[in-house]
């Protein structure tokens, strides 16, 4: 339409408006002549005029009203930026939803980035809403799992506008699954890895009696390293009231399957599940853990197919499909979907919840059974080989060479990765592999480099490597004070320092404590921090609290089952309390996770020695680089040789160690072996001298209970029962109550009929039985 035409239409319109309505048709017929279009234009405007009164006012007022209404729960989007609440300073707005705004904030006390969810001041007048807000926070904060967003604090602070309630949680850098899905479907391996992690989170929540109720891609975040976080546990719990209060249907009437907007105002609830809801939610029925499994099924389906299983033009159509239709086969959308995958997804999506997985753990178990083939599609190889035109023959050797390089490279990469399983370059972490290198934050590359190298040296138990580790890790945390994983590894390095190398220097122990606290403050789920804490507790000064240490290690391993060092340390404790089978189990697992874990291998040697399997111990101890822990390998090797009657070889090892490591803290231990050798040789004078020397050199040191045990053996060999039992008692009291060793060690055979020994063994057996109850 042209302005001229509009003017023409307008003139006729005004003229007609001057007339009585009944006179208008004749007027227009005359004025427009044969221009029918002109007449229709004017007629339609005249008709519109009859309904138009006040409509613009209504539209504008409506939008203003909406702005005002919105302001009640979203005062001014981003209004907190640059301001502080408590000791949190809001840096930027990262999201806003029905229950408030979410800011990226800095915890000014701890200097870390957090996510701060603020309940707007206007809501605090609504006691019910405040209660629900707190309920959400409490529900979420009670859950502790790497795949569940960690809640740091639930707080209340006064601002200029009045009281403000807030939840502070870890800040997850990454994208929501929704954002990931915008890029199209995920490959099956990635999709199942995400589903497995979400199921892991659900499992923990369900065990705690919490149903999420709103599993959807918006509530799942993936970090760049592949770790998945499930958000808003407990938020959905709020909507349960909605269900009961008729949001999903008046008073739960089943025929009202579609939420009627006019009913919604009564409860004022926010419902967000929409297309991920289960049939029971659509019907307004009670929800339970299987509801979450259904929603996860929808999400898993969508990740693989890039569409939801139940689609429709309107929500009503979606709900109809949800209640009655079977989802299309995944194979229709994704060629790589196997029948087993179809079955798993289908079982999640069963309309009858009795037919679904009854627990998230069951789902995880099935996801794990998916063969590697269906976990990752590899169309590239086939495509390249099958569809490309034939290559010139000269290219084949090149391709073969490239392939070989790739294989070698892959093998190297895998071994390197296993040796240090927590590299930050991991892309697809399975739920077993979450090492949480730095928590949800970006890592300074320099600090990360120092961290990775420092960690490598931290668990090599010799003095030089330990010093290197401490230097590097201290540098890592100096550059990046919020580097939780570096604090944790540093704690472990300090622990080794004071336990193994400088037992007299208390400051290392204190530093270790501080580092553990730093690590746990920055990352409450730091498995390495719990591991270090376990080892930190397990000292002579604390009388080696075996049960406490076991608890810490188990906690570390719950958080990260692939933490082989924690298994090593747990096995060490098991060895000391005579739980050899359990120790071997842990050590085997450690080696399975990390075949290059030489320490685990040497510990197996120690266990075999304690079990009296000397030949086997010898074989195990002679494989692998001794410098990883020279005293452990040396002393165990010497004892195994001694038991096998190869006294000279044993003596040679002892001499060698004393020559190579004259100032070592384990000099006492080796000297005690020396004493035993002398006793076995019948040289009592020399034996006594070595014993005195061993006590002098070894006292106060962590391995002193092994020294005292060897001294007891020497006295037993010399048939000095009283002294032998005295030192045995000392060993047992000092953290080495290794009943089965005492029971079976041939060097103690001379004591077996001694009543003092019998009494000691009776007590030890009792204690050993007690330990077995906690294994």
């Amino acid at each position, binding site marked *: 339409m042209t302005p001229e035409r509009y003017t023409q239409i307008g003139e006729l319109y005004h003229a007609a408006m001057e007339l009585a309505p009944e006179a208008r048709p004749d007027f227009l017929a005359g004025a427009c002549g044969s221009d029918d279009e002109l007449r229709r234009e004017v007629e339609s405007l005249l008709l*519109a005029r009859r309904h138009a009164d006040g409509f613009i006012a209504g539209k504008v007022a409506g939008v203003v009203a909406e702005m005002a209404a919105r302001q009640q729960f979203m005062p001014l989007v981003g209004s907190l930026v640059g301001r502080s609440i408590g000791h949190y300073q809001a840096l930027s707005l990262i999201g806003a939803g029905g229950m408030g705004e979410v800011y990226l904030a800095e915890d000014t006390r701890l200097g870390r980035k957090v996510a701060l969810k603020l309940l707007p001041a206007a809501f605090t007048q609504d006691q019910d809403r405040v209660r629900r807000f707190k309920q959400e926070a409490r529900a979420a904060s009670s859950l502790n799992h790497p795949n569940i967003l960690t809640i740091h604090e639930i707080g209340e602070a006064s601002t200029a506008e009045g009281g403000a309630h807030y939840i502070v949680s870890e800040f997850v850098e990454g994208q929501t699954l929704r954002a990931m899905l915008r890029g199209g479907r995920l490959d099956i391996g990635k999709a199942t890895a995400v589903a497995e992690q979400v199921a892991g989170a659900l499992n923990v929540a369900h065990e705690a009696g919490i149903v999420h109720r709103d599993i959807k891609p918006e509530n799942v975040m993936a970090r760049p390293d592949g770790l998945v976080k499930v958000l808003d546990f407990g938020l959905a719990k709020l909507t349960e009231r909605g269900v009961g209060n008729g949001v999903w249907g008046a008073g739960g009437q089943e025929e009202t399957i579609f939420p009627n907007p006019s009913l919604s105002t009564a409860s004022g609830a926010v419902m967000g*599940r929409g297309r991920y809801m289960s049939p029971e939610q659509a019907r307004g029925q009670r929800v339970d853990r299987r509801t979450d499994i259904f929603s996860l099924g929808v999400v898993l389906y969508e990740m693989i197919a890039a569409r939801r299983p139940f689609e429709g033009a309107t929500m009503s159509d979606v709900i109809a499909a949800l209640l009655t239709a079977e989802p299309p086969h995944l194979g229709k959308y994704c060629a790589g979907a196997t029948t087993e995958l179809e079955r798993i997804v289908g079982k999640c999506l069963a309309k009858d919840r009795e037919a679904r997985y009854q627990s998230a753990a069951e789902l995880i178990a099935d996801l794990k059974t998916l063969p590697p083939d269906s976990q990752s599609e590899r169309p590239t190889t086939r495509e390249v080989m099958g569809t490309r035109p034939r290559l010139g023959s000269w290219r084949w050797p090149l391709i073969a060479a490239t392939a070989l390089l790739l294989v070698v490279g892959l093998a190297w990469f895998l071994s390197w990765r296993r040796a240090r399983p927590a590299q930050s370059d991991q892309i697809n972490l399975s739920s077993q592999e979450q090492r949480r290198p730095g928590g949800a934050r970006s890592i300074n590359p320099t600090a990360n480099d120092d961290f990775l190298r420092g960690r490598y040296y931290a668990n090599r138990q010799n003095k030089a490597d330990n010093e290197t580790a401490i230097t590097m890790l201290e540098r890592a945390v100096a550059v990046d004070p919020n580097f939780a994983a570096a604090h944790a590894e540093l704690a472990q390095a300090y622990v080794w320092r004071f336990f193994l190398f400088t037992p007299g220097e208390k400051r290392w122990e204190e530093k270790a404590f501080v580092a553990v606290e730093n690590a746990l403050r920055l990352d409450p789920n730091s498995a390495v921090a719990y591991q270090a804490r376990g080892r930190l507790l397990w000292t002579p000064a604390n009388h080696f609290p075996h049960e406490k240490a076991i608890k810490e290690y188990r906690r570390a391993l719950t958080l990260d089952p692939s933490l082989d060092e924690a298994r090593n340390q747990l096995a060490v404790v098991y060895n000391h309390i005579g739980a050899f089978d359990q120790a071997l189990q842990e050590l085997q697992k450690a080696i399975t996770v990390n075949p290059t874990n030489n320490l685990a291998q040497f510990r197996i040697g120690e266990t075999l020695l304690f079990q009296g399997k000397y030949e086997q111990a010898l074989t195990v101890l002679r494989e692998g680089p001794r410098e990883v822990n020279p005293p452990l390998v040396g002393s165990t090797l010497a004892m195994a040789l001694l038991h096998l009657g190869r006294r000279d070889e044993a003596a040679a090892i002892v001499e060698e160690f004393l020559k190579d490591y004259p100032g070592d803290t384990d000099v006492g231990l080796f000297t005690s072996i020396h004493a035993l050798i002398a006793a076995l040789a019948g040289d009592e004078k020399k034996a006594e001298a070595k014993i005195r020397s061993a006590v002098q050199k070894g006292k106060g040191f962590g391995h002193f209970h092994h020294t005292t045990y060897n001294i007891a053996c020497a006295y037993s060999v010399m048939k000095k029962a009283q002294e032998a039992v005295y030192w045995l008692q000392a060993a047992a009291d000092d953290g080495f109550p290794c009943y089965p060793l005492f029971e079976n060690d041939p060097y103690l055979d001379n004591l077996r009929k001694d009543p003092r020994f019998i009494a000691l063994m009776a007590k030890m057996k009792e204690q050993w039985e007690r330990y077995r109850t906690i294994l």
Partner: protein
Amino acid sequence: MAAPSTQEITQLLVAWNNGDPTALEQLMPLVQAELHRLAKRYMAGERQGHILQTTALVNEAFLRLIDWQNVEWRNRSHFFGLAAQIMRRILVDFARARHREKRGGDALIISLSEAANIAREQSADLVALDDALQALERLDPRQARVVELRFFAGLSLQETAEALKVSLSTVRRDWSLAEAWLFRELSKTLTSDSPLLYDS
């Protein structure tokens, strides 16, 4: 939220009037904040469902924001011309954002209050209204100005006539036709039926 200084706002308005486009960028959030604040107060004072006195609201917003004493305005209506443009932009931007939000998210949102529920439909329609108003500008710029002044600056017919330096009857005629035309245009696209409540 600290009240923006009237001087600051006035300076920005003057700068914008003098052709500095960045002034508008800074001006918008300040006016928006004040409008929010006022709207909230109005809402609190009136029963839900009652149509807001938009005119009063907008008027008050600007009266509070502008340092009238110290600025030589060419005339009051000139100022209202500017005010109307700003207000229109704010409201339409808001409506557009809301509309996009609903389209983009797949959340099934059950509204939090009756007012918001009514308004939810309006946001989409206001976007359509703005589009139609732009079309009207091309056909008859003065009629578009009349609508803008009436509904985004809250002027009465008489004030609109003064602002545009035309007779009251001209404004009445312009208004009558513009409103009918906009209504008809919007009828073609209006979707205020239930579908707007849901994303599909």
